[in-house]
């Protein structure tokens, strides 16, 4: 019972954070709340119901089904942020390069025409 209360409180906290930082597209918010809802249902559902759902997917126990889904979710999140990281790194490279070239050109120009005293 305590663990159920803790899990539900955790899901509610995530939902509240998502609501506060709702700067993403509405579809992302809806998807997030749907996932939280599924999570809450999994916490509240009797164990047998979860096992029945797991059997539909060919998995022996409800706990295993949730573990598999969690693994898939974690991999997806990891890949998503890795892609973002590579994209950000490319932007940092472009910015650093442009800054280096602009500073170099500025130094060249100043060498040709020293600033007036």
């Amino acid at each position, binding site marked *: 019972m305590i663990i159920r209360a803790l899990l539900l409180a955790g899901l509610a906290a995530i939902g509240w954070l998502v609501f506060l930082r709702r700067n993403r597209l509405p579809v992302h918010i809806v998807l997030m709340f749907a996932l939280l809802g599924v999570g809450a249902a999994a916490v509240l559902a009797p164990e047998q119901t979860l096992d029945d759902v797991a059997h539909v997917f060919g998995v022996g126990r409800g706990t295993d089904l949730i573990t598999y889904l969690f693994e898939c979710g974690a991999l997806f999140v990891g890949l998503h942020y890795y892609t973002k990281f590579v994209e950000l790194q*490319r932007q940092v*490279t472009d910015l*650093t*390069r442009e800054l*280096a070239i602009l500073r170099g*050109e500025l130094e060249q120009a100043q060498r040709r025409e020293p600033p007036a005293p």
Partner: protein
Amino acid sequence: MDSASDRWDRRDIWVVIAAFHEAAVIGAVAAEVAAAGWSVVVVDDGSRDATAAAARGAGVTVLRHAVNLGQGAALQTGIDYALRRGARAIVTFDADGQHSAADIPELVGALADHDIALGSRFLGKPIEGATRARKALLHAATAMSNRMSGLRLTDAHCGLRAFRAEVAPRLRITQDRMAHASQLLAKIRASGLRVTEVPVTVRYTEHSRAKGQSGLQAVRILFDYFFRPS
């Protein structure tokens, strides 16, 4: 030899030197190249030592990355700068003193009838200071690189190379770190550029050996090449 490369003024040929923590040697390296009449741009890749000041002391153009990005990124910065300055051809040259400016004329000369000329340490000129183990490692890396790129080269990763400015966009480096050398070969193969190898002299010193690639770094290069989208 033609023509175009003979007509080029040496000031129109830009030698790009990517440097990271090379304060001890970069001044002499840049001065040697500049003394031969080539235009030189040193890209200090976010060094925390006096690399930039030492290069400036040699009287060459110095660009400075605000953060360390890697050799591939630094070379591309220098190439972009050289192209903006109207370069006719680009030469890449290592900062650690292992290359000789005396090899540049032959590399540039080869651009008369090729788009890119790659330096090779295994075409007869001496390799000073290389141990047997290092030579074996270089041969193994070349064999693997040839399998990956589909090219047939005697030396896959010599940092001394020259290419015509007009093919630079097709050779754009997006691998920021050391995997840029393999990426370059893949791009040469994919774009069907006319490539040749030119024998070059290499002198490994204690300093250049200390800056060389370790086995672990080789693993990182492979990871970057295969898993970092380019």
